[in-house]
């Protein structure tokens, strides 16, 4: 799939899995029972019938019950802190009737695992769980059938449990998976719908399981791509221009003469200095003088919104209902406001890194990548190599949030390894991370709403610049509405891309702020206003759960305020209520408490879902209150974490997560949804606390003071 196409997907609602290529893997595997299946098999998700002739070719994950009774699960998905290493093991263990400790997850290794388009969009649980469960159920049935022969009883008299097959009612007649698989190699693709367990029979799904990789992470044993050390490896420092998008004119490397054992490599705009000691490579690189041609600066962090407004003309209608004229005519009040959101960095704690080497005609790499298969493709294309000659290995990833979908560092590291003929490690500095991050794009939202004398929404007009349409399908009942999307490729002075729930943070902030503004203008309580104008019953139910948990009606201490925001992302519905304190003298905001209610269908690991929600809210407070990339044209002025404030311990409120009980439904996204509501909930709570309406995130103390002075 072309990068543009993929980028478009990030900013839209993805409700179907993406289909992939077909590959064969099974020859190199040893014995045991192997069930292959496709994570994205629509037919499996819906009707469960599958073409008989597609035997064993179309799949992108498989599980293997090994001859020692342990189970391997191979998937192209990666673990970056979001916890699927645990939740995938959990669903597999449930259906296969093994303890979760018997499951080994092999993830994102391009030689061992079948193709996957990448770990993003909160897709793993939504699309991997149902088929993984089915495959595990299939494997269980195969084991029961073999056991039936071995124990000389009929299969329907047998049941599985704890890694063994038992005779029902006579647990002394038993045979372990290890005994059953010994010396066998059975390969089966998932063809029909096996019998999967019902919710009431779950032992592991729906139970809270602590991350299975936690021990490796608390002991320092977990390896990230910058922790790999290869014999003869050199460390690379790239000489960078002052601005994004610069072209190299001239290199003066004479300053390297005072260093020993350094090497410089050059190709196109890439200039890198190598040394067996990373600090020496760094110091030497500072002595290389490069003359760059910088692009003209067309906008900075203040002028960018006007720039986008003036320069993007093309638009597409995303949703439309009724007539805007009728909407206007039937409204007693009409409110128009613009909302802005500046560029946001992903700022994972691990910067982009890659370690690699060429061996004969093969390239082997460990990379901090959310898309190992995409990285493989990019590398194969760069070096004109066949795909199978590039091997991306499994490794822990120090946070992604969408930023590690893009792997410039992998291509750079491989180019340097090729040019130098040595194994290379490239770990971006924080400054490089801030320049070459593919930022969440600056966005402008123009909203117009109208309500009649009864407080009913009659008009909703929403123009979105650069934030896409993901999550913008109206769940409010506004009979006359239009949502348009404005965008233009190459409009941004910086690299832009997917940032945890792409676009949805910006649009949800704008919509939920504007709904609040409208409710207040109409003189109606914001909770009541939302419930009165709700089209989606499930959303109303989710909001009510949040309001009850929070205690919407309870007294507020002086200077405190409450704010609501609703949103939908990755199939999950979110209702958030925040309490903040605002110091009207300084404009300082202290988040006190956040309640988040979600309907995410079946909650596979309630603990994991809570951790993801807490994480999303904590991260979200950063974009709501502090984060703003400072820049002029391609020159990024935020160069380190002191110039780009993310949420800290002292700003983290008490967080409560509740889930609408829907355990028989399909599971939905969990990694992204909660974060989308933070901007709106905080903006509305700040208004409630202080009377300051800030239409631009981050909601800084200065912006609050400005709003107070104006108002």
């Amino acid at each position: 799939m072309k990068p543009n196409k993929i980028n478009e997907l990030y900013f839209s609602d993805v409700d179907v899995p993406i289909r992939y290529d077909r590959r064969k893997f099974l020859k190199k595997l040893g014995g045991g029972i192997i069930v292959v299946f496709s994570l994205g098999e629509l037919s499996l998700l819906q009707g469960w019938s599958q073409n008989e002739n597609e035997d064993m070719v179309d799949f992108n994950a498989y599980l293997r019950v090994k001859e020692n009774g342990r189970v391997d699960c191979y998937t192209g998905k990666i673990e970056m802190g979001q916890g699927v290493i645990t939740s995938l093991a959990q669903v597999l263990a449930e259906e296969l009737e093994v303890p979760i400790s018997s499951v080994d997850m092999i993830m994102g290794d391009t030689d061992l695992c079948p193709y996957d388009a990448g770990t993003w969009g909160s897709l793993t649980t939504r699309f991997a769980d149902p088929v993984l469960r089915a495959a595990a159920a299939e494997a269980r049935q195969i084991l029961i059938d073999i056991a039936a022969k071995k124990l000389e009883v009929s299969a329907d008299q047998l049941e599985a449990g704890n890694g063994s097959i038992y005779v029902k009612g006579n647990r002394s007649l038993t045979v372990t998976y290890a005994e059953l698989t010994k010396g066998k190699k059975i390969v089966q693709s998932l063809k029909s719908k096996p019998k999967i367990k019902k919710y009431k029979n779950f032992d592991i799904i729906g139970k809270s399981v602590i991350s299975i990789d936690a021990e490796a992470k608390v002991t320092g044993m977990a390896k990230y791509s910058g922790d790999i050390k290869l014999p003869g490896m050199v460390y690379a420092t790239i000489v960078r221009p002052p601005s994004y998008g610069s072209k190299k004119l001239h290199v003066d490397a004479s300053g390297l003469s005072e260093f020993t054992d350094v090497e410089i490599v050059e190709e196109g705009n890439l200039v890198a200095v190598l040394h067996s000691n990373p600090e020496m490579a760094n110091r030497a690189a500072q002595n290389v003088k490069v003359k760059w041609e910088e692009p003209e600066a067309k906008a900075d962090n203040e002028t960018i919104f006007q720039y986008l407004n003036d320069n993007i003309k093309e638009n597409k209608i995303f949703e439309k209902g009724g007539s805007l004229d009728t909407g206007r005519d039937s409204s007693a009040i009409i409110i128009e406001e613009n909302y802005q959101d500046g560029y946001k960095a992903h700022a994972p704690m691990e910067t982009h890194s890659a370690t690699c080497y060429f061996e004969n005609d093969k390239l082997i790499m460990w990379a901090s990548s959310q898309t190992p298969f995409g990285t493989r493709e990019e590398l194969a294309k760069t070096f004109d190599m066949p795909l199978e000659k590039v091997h991306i290995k499994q490794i822990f990833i120090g946070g992604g949030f969408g930023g590690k979908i893009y792997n410039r560092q992998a291509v750079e590291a491989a180019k340097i390894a090729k040019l130098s003929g040595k194994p290379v490690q490239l770990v971006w500095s924080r400054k490089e991370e801030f320049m070459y991050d593919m930022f969440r794009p600056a966005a402008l939202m123009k909203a117009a709403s109208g309500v009649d004398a009864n407080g009913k929404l009659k008009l909703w007009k929403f123009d979105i610049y650069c934030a896409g349409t993901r999550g913008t399908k109206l769940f409010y009942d506004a009979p006359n509405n239009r949502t348009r999307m404005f965008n233009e490729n190459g409009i941004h002075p910086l690299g832009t891309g997917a940032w945890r729930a792409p676009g949805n943070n910006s649009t949800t902030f704008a919509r939920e702020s504007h709904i609040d503004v409208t409710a207040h203008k109409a003189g109606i309580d914001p909770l009541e206003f939302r419930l009165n104008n709700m089209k989606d019953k499930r959303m109303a139910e989710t909001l009510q759960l949040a309001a009850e948990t929070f205690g919407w009606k309870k007294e507020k201490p002086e200077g405190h305020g409450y704010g609501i925001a609703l949103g939908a992302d990755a199939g999950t519905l979110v209702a958030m209520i925040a309490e903040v304190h605002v110091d009207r003298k300084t404009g300082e905001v202290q988040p006190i408490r956040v309640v988040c209610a979600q309907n995410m269908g079946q909650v596979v690991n309630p603990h994991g879902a809570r951790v993801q929600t807490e994480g999303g809210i904590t991260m979200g407070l950063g974009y709501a209150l502090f984060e703003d990339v400072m820049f002029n044209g391609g020159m990024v002025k935020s160069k380190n974490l002191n110039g780009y404030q993310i949420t800290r311990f002292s700003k983290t409120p008490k967080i409560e997560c509740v889930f609408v009980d829907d355990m028989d439904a399909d599971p939905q996204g969990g990694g992204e949804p909660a974060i989308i509501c933070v901007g709106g909930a905080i903006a509305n709570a700040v208004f409630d606390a202080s009377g300051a309406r800030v239409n631009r995130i981050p909601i800084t103390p200065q912006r609050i003071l400005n709003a107070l002075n104006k108002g």
Partner: protein
Amino acid sequence: MKRSISFKLNDKAVSVNADGEESLLNVIRTYLDKTGTKFGCGMGHCGACTVIIDKEPLRACMISVEDVEGKEILTIEGLASDGSLHPIQKAFVSHDALQCGFCTPGMIMNAYGLLIKNPEPSREYIISGMEENLCRCGSYNRIVDAILTAAEEMKVKI
């Protein structure tokens, strides 16, 4: 100029042939192959490289190796003893006070330094003592809970 510099790392005497100005972080990771201590920002802003030097939690990226000559350094790899996790490590696991795990070694070492100074910390004391350690995944509340649990367990042990 390179010279021999000796100190104690995780209870073992080590000596490296390094330029005195090299950062302790680089020496620990590159010379001594202890990669649990992480590089996050290189300027002391994030705390991912926190180690204990003579009982003080400090940023290894901001310390020159010549300044630790003769000192005792403890990194995440030296915290567990006799194969069993330190109470802080145990509490991070039981509270699941981590996601991607990249800030975790620095968080644990900083917490260790805090608990040496104050074995009976309040929630507020922990928050202010941990404030300069950053976690992008958003595990702060769980980290505070984990440190409180660890403090309880360490008290019982003594």
